């Protein structure tokens, strides 16, 4: 790792209250090596300040309030939308605020699935998070279409030969993740989308692990819809985004009915507002959206390319350190030629991932053990789960050293 990448983390650590000494003292002297950012990334001061500012200074409802504080709430809320649009290279009206990636994926599937039926197919990957997988699986049962799974090659990359076999004229939707939260694999979206386009299929991207972690341009990515959560990109929980191409959002019916999503209501009928408001019924998560806007500012200031480089460097560093651990197997791309996200999934022979994660936790190394919401993937790999270390921009060499020595300690404890 070079000095510059180190400094990114070194500088930004100051920004995170949970990484300060005072917070760590509450842990009975246990250090806090936070290696669970793929589950949720920590929140920087600037995001906390933005949300606090809303609650303290202008905590009023958005839209139609004829006084300064409500006007300001509306303005900040809509400014966040513009910021998110900027991050993705989308137009503001293509950004729908939701509760998170899960809600975004459900929302779009709910609307698209109703148009599918017997003979139609939806193609996903075997790596999909349950938020994408279970959603299509259940709608398939309801509407009679089929879900096809693209498998993996031995190096944990997506099997593009299988993708070419599966995607055809019967394919109506291709819905895959950008970066795997379980393996760190980066999916070849360009190739997949070309295939999907050849057959006129709608393209959905689960970008929960990539927005804010690597540059995203929805124009070059050429997707119809894209979903992500604020809390995985240093923003608050309870806020996320569904991006949709304007004409695609326009053509979809609303998901929830209520206030703000309507243009005109009579006793007999209603006319819908245009996107994005058509999909934001009711009082939204105003503080969350404002916090997300601040998180966009934060990752932009650090530089999303720098974050990407840093995470990848940490992952490679971890891979090379863990390669020395006896009996340890990595599940995910290990070849330096392959792009990968900041997630390192592993098992040590004879040790259950929960025992591993539990002992690591006791050493102040915060990882996650289990199926990472990808049970069909684990089943295909023949595993009860893995232990996963995932990196954020605040992590550095020390965290990886701590990870390695805690793994060695766990092996000693469990195998002695």
């Amino acid at each position, binding site marked *: 790792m070079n000095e510059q990448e180190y400094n990114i983390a070194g500088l930004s650590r100051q920004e995170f209250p949970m990484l300060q000494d005072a917070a760590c003292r*509450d*842990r*009975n002297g246990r250090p806090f090596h936070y290696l669970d950012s793929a589950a949720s990334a920590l929140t920087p001061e600037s995001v906390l300040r933005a949300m606090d500012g809303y609650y303290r200074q202008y905590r009023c409802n958005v839209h139609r309030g004829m006084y300064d504080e409500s006007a300001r709430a509306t303005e900040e809320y809509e400014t966040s939308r513009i910021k998110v649009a900027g991050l993705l290279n989308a137009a503001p009206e293509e950004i729908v605020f939701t509760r998170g990636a899960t809600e975004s994926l459900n929302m779009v599937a709910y609307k698209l699935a109703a148009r599918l039926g017997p003979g139609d197919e939806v193609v996903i990957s075997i790596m999909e998070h349950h938020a994408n997988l279970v959603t299509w699986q259940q709608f398939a049962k309801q509407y009679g279409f089929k879900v096809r799974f693209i498998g993996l090659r031995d190096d944990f990359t997506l099997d593009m030969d299988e993708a070419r076999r599966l995607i055809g004229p019967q394919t109506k939707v291709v819905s895959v993740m950008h970066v795997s939260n379980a393996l760190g694999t980066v999916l070849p979206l360009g190739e997949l989308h070309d295939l999907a386009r050849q057959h006129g299929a709608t393209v959905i991207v689960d970008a929960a692990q990539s927005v804010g972690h690597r540059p995203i341009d929805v124009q070059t990515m050429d997707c119809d819809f894209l979903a992500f959560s604020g809390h995985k990109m240093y923003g608050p929980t309870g806020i996320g985004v569904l991006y949709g191409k304007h004409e695609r959002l326009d053509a979809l019916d609303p998901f929830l009915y209520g206030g703000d999503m309507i243009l005109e209501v009579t006793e007999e009928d209603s006319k819908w507002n245009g996107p994005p408001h058509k999909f934001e019924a009711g009082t939204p998560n105003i503080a969350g959206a404002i916090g997300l806007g601040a998180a966009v500012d934060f990752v932009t200031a650090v530089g999303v390319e720098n974050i990407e480089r840093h995470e990848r460097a940490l992952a490679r560093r971890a891979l090379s350190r863990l390669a020395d651990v006896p009996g340890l197997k990595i599940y995910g791309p290990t070849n330096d030629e392959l792009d990968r996200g900041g997630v390192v999934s592993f098992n040590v022979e004879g040790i*259950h*991932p*929960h*025992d591993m994660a*539990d*002992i690591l*936790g*006791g050493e102040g190394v915060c990882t996650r053990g*289990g*199926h990472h919401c990808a*049970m069909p993937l*684990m089943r295909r790999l023949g*595993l*009860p*789960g893995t232990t996963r270390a995932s990196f954020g921009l605040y992590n550095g060499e020390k965290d990886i050293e701590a990870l390695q020595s805690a793994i060695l300690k766990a092996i000693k*404890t*469990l195998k*002695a």
Partner: protein
Amino acid sequence: MNGIDHDRIGRADLYRQNILDHNRSPRNRRRMDDATISRREVNMSCGDDVEIFVRVEDGRIADLSFDGIGCAISQAATSMLTEKAKGLTLEEVAVLDRSFVFGLLGVEVGPARLKCALLGLETLKKALRENSDT
């Protein structure tokens, strides 16, 4: 961590010698040919898998064994259970609860691992309950 059990329980404690010993050399780990009752339960979210075999005679557990894979806590707790529950009456087993398992393990298990610790006992109780229903 104020109010949270973590440090009272202490992970070092969770992986104490008796638990590790039962995990490495489980007792009564065998499939039973003459079992009167058997039942398999899985902790889907953890990947813990336990199958319990019971031979009931005169309302008592005459023999008890298990087979399974999973984390050290689930396997050790089940192994200990098979030692201690042998000879108990069905009524006695029916009232066993988490404190009994904590007693076996010698440590109170926190919320994150409770399902692992209780899998064996729950499986045994379900097996016996189901059997008494039929």
